[in-house]
């Protein structure tokens, strides 16, 4: 932890070589995200002591609020190919394991995930026994024009449903020189979700290895964070792939072209979507 205080702030770009960002590049990537996806916005901490000096005071972190999450990710069926990619992306313990062990574990993971039954639909009419109520209902004026909420399961109906919602934030991680994603969730009834509940919305059984609960550096609340230790490596691979594809598609008349660093967060969020597949933040028409 102390080491973090002694690492020099990157000023020259290692984006192409290592898949990391300087604070300036993080700012530019954030600006592009906000301008193309305006449901994201820059924010500053309310507590000035939480300000990061090397980031602009009004552009400290990115936030998107109240993102719907209708289903639990750990109840999804798993596509085997997809999981192979995500294994690379997510598994922070990969280095400590033998190759064959890894394959074995992947197969196991697949079967456990697919066998999980979907959660039963919430029984809206049954109140918990300790539900507090007003002493009387006399004061409430009858209003026939209120449309009754429907509680049909999300998949089968386009009717009104309640949903968990998440506030997602992206901070700049100085140690890993990458963006870092934080989750804070609310239940259908508006109460904050606990760690276990949030883990239900993180893909399969990786949640335990790649996520931790920590105090958010700007919000000061305990949040679930996706650990950034493999973000750079994965981004590097993605940047290479995109650069290659650009060349294959004909490139630009012999001029060597590279992916712009300010596209970083758009690519990054596409991958984060694989970790939290049911949290429906808007990625628009980005096609990678």
């Amino acid at each position, binding site marked *: *932890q102390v080491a973090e205080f002694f690492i020099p702030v990157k000023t020259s770009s290692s984006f192409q070589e290592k898949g990391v960002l300087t604070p300036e590049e993080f700012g530019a990537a954030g600006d592009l995200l906000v301008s193309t*996806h*305006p*449901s994201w*916005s820059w924010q500053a901490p*309310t507590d000035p002591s939480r300000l990061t000096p090397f980031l602009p005071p009004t552009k400290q972190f990115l936030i998107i*609020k*109240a993102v*719907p999450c*209708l289903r639990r990710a750990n109840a999804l069926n798993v596509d085997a190919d997809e999981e192979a990619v995500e294994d690379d992306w997510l598994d922070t313990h990969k280095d400590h394991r033998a190759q064959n062990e890894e394959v074995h574990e992947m197969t196991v993971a697949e079967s456990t995930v697919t066998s999980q039954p979907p959660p039963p639909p919430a029984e809206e009419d049954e*109140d918990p026994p300790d*539900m*507090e*109520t*007003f*002493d*009387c*209902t006399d*004061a*409430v*004026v*009858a*209003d*026939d*024009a*209120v*449309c009754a*909420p429907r509680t049909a399961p*999300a998949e089968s109906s*386009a*009717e*009104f*449903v*309640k*949903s968990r*919602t998440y*506030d997602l934030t992206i901070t700049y991680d100085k140690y890993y020189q990458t963006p870092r994603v934080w989750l*804070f969730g*609310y239940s259908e*009834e*508006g*109460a*904050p979700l*606990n*760690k276990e509940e949030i883990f239900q919305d993180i893909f399969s059984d990786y949640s335990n290895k790649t996520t931790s*609960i*920590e*105090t958010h550096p700007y*919000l000061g*609340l*305990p949040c679930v964070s996706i650990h950034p230790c493999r973000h750079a490596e994965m981004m590097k691979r993605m940047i290479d792939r995109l650069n290659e594809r650009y060349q294959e598609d004909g490139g630009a008349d012999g001029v060597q072209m590279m992916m712009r660093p300010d596209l970083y967060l758009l690519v990054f969020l596409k991958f984060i979507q694989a970790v939290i597949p049911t949290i*429906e933040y*808007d990625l*628009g028409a980005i096609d990678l």
Partner: protein
Amino acid sequence: FFFAMSAPTMMQFEQLSCRLEVPFWFELERRKLHEYKDTMFPVTIWGSYSTAGHQQISSPVTVGAEGFTAPAASAFTFPIQGTLLNTNTVEELKRFDRQRLLSTAGADIWATIQDGRWLQKPGTLNRFVLLCHADLKQHRFLHCTGFPVLLPARPFTRASQAAPVSDTFSLDQQNTIHAGVGELRTSAGPDASSAFLVTLLQGSATVQVSPLSAWADDVGREGRTVWLGVADPCAQPTVAGWPVRNLLLALAHHFRLEGVVRVLCYREVPGRQDISRSIIVDVAVSAAEVLRGGEFQPTYAGWPQDNKLRTVDLSPLMDEEKLSSSSA
């Protein structure tokens, strides 16, 4: 066989919901401890909502820690003024005269209708009330939110089925409406653009967006069809959202309307040039039936129809906070 005629269908609306953020509760705790102490008085707070951007999930009114100081100014959201009443004990909360709290906010809305302010700032027709008790020792909150609505003596009825916006407006026209609403927001502010007019000139495909205050000029003029556009947080494909109600009542009362108002429930996906989820529904209103005979103001409703109190328990969060800061 006159009795075979079907009775007009009452318009129904989806009630707003409130999303009270955790930092809001912590700020309330702080203020209760250092400022309010044992006194109990209404406090003005602010929330905001956006139009429904999701296919299934209606947008809530969001209230954050900044709700104590200023209306939210973020892109795509509309501010909504609220009244917070925090009681000292659970018993006080349970016995509280809810209707009085709601009626006070409702009477404010009625006042903006009476003096015409609503025409310049239709956002003043939206309000919320938050009645709660904060248990500072246990970090536990009991609360209930209401959204005051002015009930017409006779409910509004539906004059047409709700239909997707594409049944009326082409994609080009939808884009023009989207751009027009954006311009109105830029020039007049979010408070003035939560409701607007969409005018179609007969014999051409030209649509234009104008501020609500142009109603008297636009409506009833030869060769024009006018829709009341309302920024709508409701996502249901056949149901109009809560903000439509007070607007219809204000229009009917102010302009002495007897007839049908075409309503465009405006649902923009925030940040996208996409209003295709908007719906259009025609509503029959009657100025003569806004107030009951002999009364000078309408009845106010808007609490949930049950008597339940919601609980938010932040003590686990405090424990986690302690754990994560001690392990750091």
